[in-house]
């Protein structure tokens, strides 16, 4: 009897050991459709992107529709092909070139966002506002509303288009300022004077009220990181003269509900400007005012 048990046990073990050693081959893995990304016969736009952005700056730009790059809760459409090169070319002139000229190509390659995704329509929000650009993780920037992009010399260009183009540069510079902040931290002096004023309820603060507290824009009051990005980007795209006018326009009497006087608000903006300038010098050895002049001049040349 014992022998039978032993035989059974032995058999069981043998089965256990041998039974499931099936050699399942993986099959032909390099034949999985779409593995390694989509491919298509390269057209002139693909070649332009490769030559102008990818080879010199290691930046890719996706203009063909790929839902996986985009928010799923929004209805969006891909860009018109005839807008792709004008938009990217203006970005090269208004954003890449000023930085490269001022700080060198190595600095730019090290820090710039690498993936641009282009969308034809704006992104419509439920509160009625439009999103013109977003960025993720310092690597990827989504630009919206390309189909309405018009600059000087393009058919149908009207003065109202200026705002859209400036906002496009603002989005890119805003995200780039975040990346610089994440790479070398901005000194705390930047936000010290405004620390108690930041609010997550920023959409209910009017741009004028934000300015009266010493913030360059409405969005700047949402937190210290965005205050930084807003200050750097708006000053770059609109120029030094604009910023001086903005600061000088703060002329209310008395105090805001938060107890800020006009003089304090001006002082805060001036101190933020000074921190931006010293940060760019110390962290990256960039003359911010010179960069600002180049940037503003490049954007103006596209528009006026």
């Amino acid at each position, binding site marked *: *009897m014992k022998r*039978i048990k032993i*035989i*059974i046990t032995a*058999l*069981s073990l*043998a*089965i256990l050991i*041998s*039974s*499931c050693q*099936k*050699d*399942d081959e993986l*099959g*032909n893995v390099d*034949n*999985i*459709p*779409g593995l390694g990304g*989509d491919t*298509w*016969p390269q*057209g002139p736009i693909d070649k332009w992107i490769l030559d102008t952005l990818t080879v010199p700056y290691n930046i890719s730009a996706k*203009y*063909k*529709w*790929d*839902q996986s790059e985009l928010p799923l809760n*929004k*209805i*969006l*459409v*891909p*860009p*018109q*092909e005839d807008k792709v090169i004008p938009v990217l070319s203006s970005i090269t002139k208004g954003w890449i070139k000023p930085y490269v000229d001022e700080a060198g190509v190595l600095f730019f390659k090290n820090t710039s966002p690498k993936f641009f995704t282009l969308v*034809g*329509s*704006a*992104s*419509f*929000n*439920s509160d009625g506002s439009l999103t013109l650009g977003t960025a993720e993780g310092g690597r990827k920037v989504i630009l919206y509303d390309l*189909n309405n992009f018009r600059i000087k010399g393009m058919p149908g260009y009207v003065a109202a288009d200026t705002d859209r183009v400036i906002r496009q540069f603002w989005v890119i510079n805003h995200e780039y300022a975040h990346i610089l902040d994440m790479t070398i931290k901005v000194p705390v002096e930047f936000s010290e004077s405004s620390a108690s004023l930041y609010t997550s309820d920023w959409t209910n603060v009017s741009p004028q009220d934000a300015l009266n507290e010493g913030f360059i824009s409405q969005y700047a009051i949402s937190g210290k990181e965005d205050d930084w990005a807003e200050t750097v980007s708006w000053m770059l795209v609109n120029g030094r003269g604009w910023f001086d006018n903005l600061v000088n326009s703060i002329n209310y009497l008395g105090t805001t509900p938060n107890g800020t006087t006009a003089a304090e608000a001006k002082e805060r903006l001036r101190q933020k400007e000074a921190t931006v300038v010293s940060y760019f010098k110390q962290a990256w050895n960039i003359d911010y005012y010179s960069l600002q002049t180049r940037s503003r001049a490049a954007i103006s040349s596209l528009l006026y």
Partner: protein
Amino acid sequence: MKRILIAFLVVAAALSSCTKEDDPVFEKSADERLQEKLAAYQAQLSGAQNGWNGLLVTDSGRGSTHSFYFKFNDQNRVTMLSDFDPVSAATFKESSYRIKALQQPSLLFDTYSYLHVLSDPDDAVNGGITGAGLLSDFEFYFDSDLQDTIKLVGRINGSKMTFTRATQAEADAYNAGQLAAGLYINNILTYFKRLTVGSQLYDVNIDPISRQFIFSWLDGSGNLQTFSTGYYFVLGGIVFTTPFVNGSLTISGFNNITWTPATETINLTINGTAATITGIVVPLKVDTGAPKRWWDYAINNGNSFWISQRGFHVNGVDDAFNIQSLTSGTSTYYFLAYNPEFEPGNDLFAPIFLNAAGTQIVLAYGTAPDTPNFSGGKATFTQLGTYGTYPSTGPAAQSRTLLYNTSGWYFVQTGATTYDMVSAGNGKSWITWEF
């Protein structure tokens, strides 16, 4: 006995468990079959040398119907026509497409084309819902596939697309611009349009925004009847998604549409019988109560005003006077307003401006019509005086001159709080009032 049974089972298991043969149901792996299927679809689409007729019904097949013509090549490029507007119906546009394995083999139109016009979330493009467009699609999965018919379903809004293989004759007709024939109806510049079929008269109206074709006629007792249906354009004609039936006459579409500029007449055939569409000034039945109803409505609802964003449409041109370009100081044009009984005994007609900060509406000047004359089923306006300094030239002046046209205006109620005010003079000018 039990032990023997166990032993038997173990031996049986040992013998059977290790059949190491994979015996798949299919001869090839899933990836290989997918590759083959994608290649087959590609070959089928680009292999049709005369291209494909496309018929799209938006919003899971519940929405509007639109026709297309596609010609695919094997380099991921497609050229297209669509019946959306006169340009898209006659001018080929090239864009990109690709066939891709998503959850199902799918056809993606991946750069902007006439197809995307329907999906565009900007309502200024297609008159659809802001943020959603006309609930259409540009990514489709293959639902069924025969040699000459391919059915596709949209991946976001479930639009139904049917491709049918085009013939040489159809391809020639598309190249000749025949898809635009149905749009000749827009060549008639009057608000009211008359379809004459034998002795029967119908007023017809085409609304491109809601994609509705509307028939109005008088029944035996002289009452106005209306019927509206969705429509789409085909080569040389129009197809109604719901056929119009009146007595013995069934109209499922118009064929052989031609336009004669000299007489401003559209000739067409219905079931092989010749018919015409011409412009008219006076509709079959004038809504004689409408002008007074329009005027009273604003008074009875808070003594408020009617507004028009786009001003007057004249001779086929929307906002003919370019009123939307009007400015006053730093304020920009906001809307045209008509305020009945603005002050006791007089009304107000004026452009309203928005201040530069966008926080306040501004009345810079206006003209004061007398209480309108409502005789003859029309409203006729005469000026009593002005507010401020009314400009003597430009969009505001032109709008004022047109308003005081002595022929007066018919009113057509188009919704609970919307009216179209149509010139009773030549029928070629109108303005849409909203409350």
